[in-house]
């Protein structure tokens, strides 16, 4: 391994050329097509994409939660000096919920309805941290308090159905953080929640992240939430990253036509948009039947390069950590207004 450049520490997690394929009667669905990224301590990395873009499957495979078969997962997930994809099921169990934890979109389906909150919250600390029952319970009560659950001691004996949606998501977060993970994967953690509750949960995760120094991979389709939480953003389309940038660069200067289209199609509160939103034409592609060349080319308003339909454009670095997978670049925001 090379020495880290001065000022940039070694990443806690490194994903290299990750592929996920599902074989089926209707052919092979190539859902994740060679993605690579680093996660650094304490940062929030957002992966943005629409349904079917492969964002959830790619992160489930980081935790060995994509069953093989039917899936085939290849590539490298480097964590703690080894490739996690080589792990046995026993080794996965030592990692999951311990060093790498995950919270899901819908806490009602991911919490066990027949076990108390306390039982689900003490499991991780007992298993991974080797705490006694009493110590695990004390830790669980402490975490319930930290995630803002009133009278946590009493709530330990509650079942998930006795809590509101926002409270259940708080319990999920407490479970996720109870073993001090280095990386927390949050898969659409606020999508099922109302907007005022979403604001509570976003603030809670950011606050705990600062306090505990956890890195967060935030998976979402919501570009509004990303603007508020992320340090860096990866935009995913048809199983590949099409753009990578710091959060400020991505919104101020999107260079991929898809990112550009997504931002243009959003109504923004307090901004008077032209009468018509700029919609992206067409539909996202079927992963069993991907277009040739650039996966976005059938929907792309530019297609200015003859290679678009034949070659997959490389993810090209355009400076300051900004990269885009295009032959043609959407003009720079500053140039556009100058001309």
């Amino acid at each position, binding site marked *: 391994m090379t020495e880290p450049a001065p000022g940039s520490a070694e990443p806690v997690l490194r994903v290299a050329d990750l592929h996920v394929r599902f074989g089926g009667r209707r052919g092979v669905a190539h859902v994740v097509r060679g993605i690579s990224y680093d996660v650094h301590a304490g940062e929030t990395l957002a992966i943005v994409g*629409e*349904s079917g873009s492969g964002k959830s499957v790619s992160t489930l495979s980081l935790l060995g939660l994509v069953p093989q078969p039917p899936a085939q997962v290849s590539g490298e997930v480097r964590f703690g000096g080894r490739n996690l994809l080589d792990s046995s099921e026993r080794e996965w169990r030592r990692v999951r919920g311990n060093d790498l934890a995950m919270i899901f979109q819908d806490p009602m389906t991911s919490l066990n309805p027949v076990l108390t909150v306390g039982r689900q919250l003490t499991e991780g600390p007992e298993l991974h941290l080797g705490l006694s029952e009493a110590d695990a319970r004390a830790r669980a009560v402490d975490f319930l308090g930290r995630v803002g659950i009133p009278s946590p001691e009493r709530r330990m004996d509650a079942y998930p159905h006795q809590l*509101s949606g*926002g*409270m259940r998501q708080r319990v999920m977060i407490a479970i996720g953080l109870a073993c001090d993970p280095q990386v927390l994967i949050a898969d659409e953690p606020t999508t099922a929640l*109302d*907007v*005022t*509750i*979403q*604001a*509570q949960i*976003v*603030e809670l995760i950011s606050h705990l992240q600062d306090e505990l120094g956890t890195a967060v991979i935030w998976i979402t*389709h*919501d*570009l*509004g*939430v*990303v*603007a*508020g939480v*992320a340090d860096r953003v990866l935009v995913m389309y048809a199983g590949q990253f099409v753009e990578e940038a710091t*959060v*400020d660069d991505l*919104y*101020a200067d999107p260079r991929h036509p898809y990112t550009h*289209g*997504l*931002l243009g*199609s*959003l*109504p*923004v*509160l*307090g901004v*008077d*948009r032209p*009468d*018509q*939103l*700029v*919609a*992206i*034409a067409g*539909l*996202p592609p079927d992963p069993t039947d991907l277009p040739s060349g650039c996966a976005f080319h059938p929907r792309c308003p530019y297609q200015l390069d003859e290679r678009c339909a034949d070659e997959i454009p490389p993810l090209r670095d355009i400076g300051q950590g900004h990269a885009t997978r295009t032959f043609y670049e959407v003009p720079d925001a500053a140039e556009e207004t100058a001309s």
Partner: protein
Amino acid sequence: MSDVLVSVDALEVHFPATGPLRKRGGAVRAVDGVSFDVLRGETLGLVGESGCGKSTTGLALLRLVDPTAGRVVFDSEDVTSLPAKRIRALRRRMAMIFQDPYASLNPRRPVGASIAEPLEIHDLHRGEARDRRVAELMELVGLNPDYRQRYPHEFSGGQRQRVGIARALAGEPDFIVCDEPIASLDVSIQAQIVNLMERLQDELGLTYLFIAHDLSAVQHISDRIAVMYLGRIVELADRAQLTEDPKHPYTRALVSAVPIPDPKRERRRERIILEGDLPSPMDPPSGCNFRTRCPDVFEPCDAVDPALQDVGHHQRAACHLYGVVGEEVGAASGDPGG
């Protein structure tokens, strides 16, 4: 011809408790005294969080649920007291678009047949003319009429929503209740459907009640916006007024919580984080039902039920911060204004 197409007055929809809760009596007060007008040709946005009663309000306007009390007048006909037969005829002029077109289309019927169903019911365009009308409707919403024999599962979410819209348009309605029409669609498809709905409104002179939880989308499409909380309207104003200068503390919190796709604005924003959760609509708090979560709660809030009052700029809010107006808790009905 009056400017008001739909007039809603003190509408209540209560669902009696069932099962083990029945012994205790009581009811879910889904809609609990809602009054507003929908003006001809406008889009009135109705926004609120889950369980606030916005969908039930929409259903009650078309009498797809029966109101417990209050009145809905559609173009000078009292929808709440009409006999069932007359309601059916009236529904030709009042249509609905649902959130999930997959659930609202019959999976075993070709989409052409689903679109033709309102034509059958209202006995419009017989024979070949009916087929032509179906083709015309499909073209109007951007679907290829050759696909009329296909089944709903053969379409994408956005296309299914177009089928839902074509069916809603079949009877040539004046008024359409749109219940979360874009909530289940992907971001890149939402804009397509919003643009389509706006184009149809211009071309056909439609009036919309646009029900949604997403204030950004509601602000984009609406002329005026009503905000609901726990079965009541807490604020009603022109779209820009409501989002730029919200008066009700709940609207303020809602506006401040909407994520904005601009990192610079996000960092500068002051969020009003509401404490706690929505109270049960079976047992709403006395007086102002928002007082248990309100950052500005003061003395009269638990004692006086706030009425929707004028706060200037065609803006109305149900809040005592602008003067204590409303009915005292426990007082006999009648004599509003304290």
